[in-house]
């Protein structure tokens, strides 16, 4: 048989039809049948995902993926991704789920579905345990270190009362150093940065006082995978109820899961 262009095209379409059809099938059934859950995880974004000393991926997202795999009673297969290719990996069917510190926004919601949130990610004002800060007005008379030009700088500059002094530093390290050396009362940053502080100086770990911008992370699921999405949501809800997700948060973010997540 000679390979004419027409035949080639026909063969191509035929193989495409075969190749595509499983994508419309039930992703959850596929996973159980295969016995393997394929998850895209970050490898360059600690504490959510990084490469450990043993060269294996580790982090909050990896633990969350393991939790899901355990509850589904299947093996876990990790695919390292970065923030630009994580959604394409999902939409092209290379992975079943994206657990890659993925925040929700309308552009992404048009392409994929999101589960319930499984971990907190936010920017806020942090300070010592005994600092009585419950509202923005309490910032009056306080000095707060913040990294110049960061989102938290822009947000805090908008809402901080006149009496609050913002000390703006060039980078995260100076902002943290100013807090740790007692040069400021409070620090405005992200909860992930607090983990970095906890690792270096566990005695003065700042606790959350005010939230500036909330952007929790979700599991990404392909569109039209209702069964899989429902299952993931059920596991996340169970994980919140029985404290296993809380343990993951305590381990990697040094803080309990917020009640309103």
């Amino acid at each position, binding site marked *: 048989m000679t390979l004419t262009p027409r035949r080639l095209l026909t063969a191509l379409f035929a193989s495409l039809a075969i190749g595509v059809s499983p994508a419309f099938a039930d992703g959850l059934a596929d996973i159980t049948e295969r016995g393997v859950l394929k998850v895209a995880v970050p490898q360059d974004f600690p504490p959510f995902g990084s490469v450990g000393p043993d060269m294996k991926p580790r982090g909050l997202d990896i633990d969350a993926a393991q939790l899901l795999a355990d509850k589904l009673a299947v093996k876990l297969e990790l695919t390292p991704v970065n923030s630009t290719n994580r959604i394409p990996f999902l939409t092209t069917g290379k992975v079943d789920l994206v657990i890659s510190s993925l925040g929700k926004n309308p552009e992404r919601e048009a392409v994929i579905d999101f589960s319930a949130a499984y971990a907190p990610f936010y920017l806020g004002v942090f300070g010592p345990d005994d600092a009585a800060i419950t509202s923005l007005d309490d910032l009056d008379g306080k000095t707060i*270190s913040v990294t110049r*030009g960061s989102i938290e700088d822009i947000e805090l500059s908008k809402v901080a009362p006149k009496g609050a002094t913002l000390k*703006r*530093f*060039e980078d995260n390290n*100076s902002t943290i150093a*100013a807090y740790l*050396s007692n*040069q400021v009362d409070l620090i405005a940053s992200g909860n992930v940065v607090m983990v970095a502080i906890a690792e270096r100086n566990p005695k003065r770990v700042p606790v959350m006082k005010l939230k500036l911008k909330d952007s929790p992370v979700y599991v990404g699921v392909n569109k039209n995978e209702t069964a899989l999405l429902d299952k993931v949501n059920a596991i996340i809800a169970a994980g919140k109820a029985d404290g296993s997700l809380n343990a993951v948060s305590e381990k990697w973010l040094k803080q309990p899961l917020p009640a309103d997540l």
Partner: protein
Amino acid sequence: MAYQFDFIPVLQNVDLLLQGAGFTLALTAVGTLLGVGLGIIGAVLRAWRIKPFNTLFGVYVELIRNTPFIVQLFFIFFGLPALGVRLTEWEAAVLAMVINLGAYSTEIIRAGIQAIPHGQLEAAAALAMSRVETFRYVVLRPALAKVWPALSSQIIIVMLGSAVCSQISTEELSFAANFIQSRNFRAFETYLVTTLIYLAMAILIRQLLAWFGRRFIQGAR
């Protein structure tokens, strides 16, 4: 694609820049007065080899002149609190500038003192001038007159170097520039205007110091 220059966002914040420039000048003024004062003391102790202070100042001069200003500043601001010494960003900035200028001016003024011919001191003694008079008219003033251009340059360097103080959140001119740039991302325009302000300030200080030198140090002999 050609860059569209737009100075409006910078000019809207020109009050911030001017306020920053004011703080830079104030920092420089205080730093210069105290720093040159420290330098005169150090120079005298070094020139006359008054023990043990000459060794002490020798170590101080070498330590400061052979380490970066920003490290000295960070040590004072971020490091000293560990020893219980907590300074505000302004105190830390002034202290760092005084210590820095003090070290350089010690050596500059010492050179001036040592360049005074010994016969001049003998002449003062022959004229029965008191020790204070001798020091004031025969030692210090001619010494400062000799090194005045070098000292002026060092003061300008310290003024320009104070830009580094923005790193510890001291809100001087560079801080204002960085702040404005972080809000409007107009780097070229912001730093061009800032550069021109620094240039104007440097020329102003140089003229001021030249006038001061002519009027009080070099002129009145």
